[in-house]
């Protein structure tokens, strides 16, 4: 890794009250970024590779209507899995898929879209997570998991400096 060359900050924002958006620039053409996101042998080398966790299953059927299955094994053999279905597959610039975790962290489904834009050999990745959570919209406090989280994101970051 060359920090001076690839130094890029991750930007988190909240386009709406049900969405989280992350953007990040990579110093590589988007075909490579796309592959790194969609080929099991590449994806397993970077996503979720936290200390104590290993990949157990990574299956990707990359076509519209195809499914993916990720499973990580953690401390004490505990497993963490997620699955989803591809809604849109356009190499090398866009992937849209539903995703849900084995453990119900939140109600409903999440749709994740990854968009890749290339400029001068560098790729801007935009990952948009859209939660299907009507309770957020209704402003119900008791709603599960994702309640308001998305909306709080950047706003929270913006607010915090004022509290010092």
């Amino acid at each position, binding site marked *: *890794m*060359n920090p001076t060359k*690839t130094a*890029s900050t*991750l930007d*988190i924002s909240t386009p709406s*009250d049900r969405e989280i958006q*992350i953007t*990040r620039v*990579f*110093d*590589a*053409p988007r075909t*490579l*970024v796309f*592959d*790194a996101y969609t080929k099991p042998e*590449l994806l397993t*080398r*970077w*996503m*979720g*590779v*936290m*200390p*104590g*966790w290993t990949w157990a299953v990574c299956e990707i059927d990359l076509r519209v209507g195809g499914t993916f299955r990720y499973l*990580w094994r*953690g*401390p*004490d053999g*505990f497993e*963490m899995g*997620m699955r989803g279905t591809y809604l849109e597959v356009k190499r090398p610039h866009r992937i849209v898929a539903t995703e849900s*975790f084995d*453990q119900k*962290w*939140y109600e409903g489904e999440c749709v994740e879209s990854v968009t890749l834009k290339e400029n001068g050999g560098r790729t801007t990745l935009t990952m948009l997570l859209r939660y299907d959570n009507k309770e*957020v919209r209704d*402003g119900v*406090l*008791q*709603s*599960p*998991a*994702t*309640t*308001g*989280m*998305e*909306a*709080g*994101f950047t*706003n*929270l*970051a913006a*607010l*915090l400096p*004022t*509290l010092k």
Partner: protein
Amino acid sequence: MDGVRDSAENLVGVSDTDPGSRLSALGSRRSIAPCHDRTDALYNHSVMQYSTLSSPQLDAIFAALADPTRRAILSRLASGDASVNELAEPFDMSQPAISKHLKVLEGAGLVSRGQDAQRRPRRLEAKPLAVANEWLERYRKYWEANYERLDALLEELKAAHTPKRRRTRGKSRP
């Protein structure tokens, strides 16, 4: 990379004692689910940020922060305690409407009431915000760590994709 590893280890280290004590600072009426080892392990893994959301407190905080008026109230309180009247002033809102927002903020533990019985000034509680911010930071760190690994992988892929002819020519040129 050391920084990333350190932060990851810090996350693991947090699990034993911190979440409970920090969350108790929220002063919410609702109780907190006990922290099992497994939950903590998840807590530290990626996605796992989601597991923290099972905490009703965090839900309440983020829900409270989702509203622009409530954020404005918090910003106002950040510069000092204020009564409901004082808070209502800058907004084009009725007192009951402001009170409703305050109730949500109080429910999330973000705002408390001062001692003065007549004025009942509202006060900002910074600790819950710190907890929420910590959650946000974990999420950010998780993806930053992922993408730093992806950076390294991409460098490798780029090298592999560079046509050999060009590389050898460059290298072997006397």
